[in-house]
């Protein structure tokens, strides 16, 4: 009995030895092989870990550690009405900008989808040239246009449309105009990429079945373009709530957005703990929104 067991053990260890030769390397064991397309992700993942994950971790530690573990920064953020108000205002401006981008961008993307190749190219160029211009230059240009003595007011006054200058700068109007201009291309490109993938035969089928042009649009095209509306709106909203330069230059103090609050804490007050806490609140809000939107539609289908 014992003998046979010994033999069994021996055999076992031998088979182990044989196995070890063919044993996959650790990289292969965790799925990194040349045949796995995920392998291509190794470098980006390392990049993200080093340049995003590590700094984020540092910021998080700063927000809860002040020589000792503390929740004072978060408590302060949520206990003072002022900071909550800034957060809500940030979300409100983000929502207004998203809506204006959608209203302005949808017709453009729609026209592009059905335009001739030549017209399509022209529209694309018209969208991309401002897109490639420095954000700072564009914001300064808006300052020149919108101020009291600016081009827009002067023109409206001369034409007799208004009798005294409209206030379009250093208030929420200025912020919304400036941010909409900067974020509009993102919306149009998201909408267009979905719209041009819609099978046009479905529209013909709709008309053949007796739908009037508006019905074809509202019952067939609009629902099919919904993923574009969602992805564009998400992108614009999430980028919008982190905006800094446009609200600082075109807004008044009362239009301060959350990133301006962070900048004051970092640059002027040198209170990095509180700044880190505010940053994390912003990040949490963004992630929450992403999760909520996941409940309504599958993210992987968006982009």
């Amino acid at each position, binding site marked *: 009995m014992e003998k046979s067991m010994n033999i069994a053990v021996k055999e076992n260890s031998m088979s182990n030895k044989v196995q070890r030769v063919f044993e996959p390397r650790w990289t292969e064991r965790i799925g990194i092989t040349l045949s796995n397309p995920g392998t291509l992700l190794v470098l980006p993942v390392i990049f993200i870990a080093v340049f995003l994950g590590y700094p984020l971790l540092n910021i998080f530690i700063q927000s809860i550690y002040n020589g000792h573990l503390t929740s004072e920064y978060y408590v302060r953020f949520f206990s003072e009405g*002022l900071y909550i*108000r*800034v957060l809500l205002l940030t979300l409100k401006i983000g929502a207004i900008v998203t809506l204006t981008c959608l209203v302005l961008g949808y017709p453009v993307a729609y026209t592009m989808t059905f335009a001739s190749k030549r017209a399509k190219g022209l529209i*694309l160029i018209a969208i*991309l040239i401002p*897109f*490639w211009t*420095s*954000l*700072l230059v564009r914001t300064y240009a808006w300052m020149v246009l919108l*101020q*009291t*003595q600016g081009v827009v007011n002067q023109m409206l006054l001369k034409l007799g449309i208004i009798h005294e200058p409209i206030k379009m*700068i*250093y208030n929420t109007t200025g912020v919304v105009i400036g941010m909409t201009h900067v974020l509009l*291309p993102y919306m149009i*490109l998201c909408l*267009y*990429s979905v719209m*041009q993938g819609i099978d046009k035969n479905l529209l013909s089928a709709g008309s053949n079945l007796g739908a009037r042009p508006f019905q074809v649009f509202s019952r067939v095209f609009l629902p099919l373009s919904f993923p574009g509306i969602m992805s564009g709106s998400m992108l614009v909203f999430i980028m919008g709530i982190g905006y*800094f*330069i446009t609200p*600082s*230059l075109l807004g*008044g*103090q*009362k239009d*301060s957005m959350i990133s301006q*609050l962070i*900048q*004051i804490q*970092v*640059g*002027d*007050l*040198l*209170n*990095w703990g509180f700044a880190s806490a505010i940053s994390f609140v912003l990040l949490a809000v963004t992630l929450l929104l992403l999760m909520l939107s996941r409940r309504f539609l599958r993210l992987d289908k968006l982009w």
Partner: protein
Amino acid sequence: MKLKNIMMRTMVAVTLISFLLTGCGQKTESASTAAPAEQKTSETKKEETKKEEPKKADKELVVVSWGGAIQDAQRTAIFKPFEEKFGVKIKEVSPPDYGKLKAMVAAGKTEWDVMDLDADFVPRGIKENLLEPLDFNIIDKTDLDPMSTNDYSVGAEYYTTGIAYNSEVVKTGSHPKNWAEFWDTSKFPQARTLQKWPVPTLEIALLADGVAPDKLYPLDVDRAFKSLDKIKKNVKAWWATGAQSAQLLTDKETPLGGVWSGRIIAAKKQGAQVEIEVNQSVLLVDSWAVPKGTTRKELAMKFIAFATSPQPQADFAKAYPYGVPNKKAYDLMDEATKATLSTSPEKRPLQVSIDVNWWAENFDKVNERFQKWLIEQ
């Protein structure tokens, strides 16, 4: 189908490129509002040179100042002559961003060597351990104004914040001549601009409320904020950089403002219809200091010694109408130059002085309140 494929690929490529480009744009954006582009290029250049010729690193010096007209004057009067005399290349950066300074010191990688700072930052910088003590074996302080000299900093230039106005909108003579009149919104309904900084905005608010210039300190902070409440809705813009304030006045966006005198005089020289009132202007000082951890400490001290010596200071005063702390410098100036300076004997009695020590004690608390007050409805 093929065409569609190509279109699709182009779209993806274009979008990717655009995202990359906007990424770059945002980097510039976060740099600063004052002179982001210049700042970025000068920094990138600095890094490049460092990589190329590490041995020559001690032959360059990074000086951080306020940009615009004031830095132009420093360049001709101080930087260029220093470069020639010491065979050193000066890299200019602007503006002195205190958050960035703290980040550099915290990372143990100080890339700036000399900074032109708000005098009221010096005590905060000492408290946060961000500054090197100065070496007075190299810097000769015998002739320097003791008021602006301490262990960590020496005065660079005296500047004033005064009542500025656009003379096309508000005629000279009927302009506000003191801060109480500046606060009078029924007599002057025009939009105003004030500095987004508590020094000397709180002093100004108290002067407007009738506090005598010699009875300002200790500041009655509550009273100052009450006074600020009265003017808040008439302050259309709170300026953060000198260039911005001059622009607001020149464009008549805000025909009235509490602005640095030098910026207004520089704008006027360029043809803008702007003027500044001397009466009740607040006299402040900027200081040269050395950030903690610089690798070129000795050269930095030599730079400060040079910058505060009589000839460069006289040249600076001639180029820019700000007083200087070296009393021997005044011997080298002509009478016309002396009369234009913020420190001229005629102007001095009309001006109000700042107590840096009070601010050293109270800055953090008051600024926190001030910044919160700004964004309140």
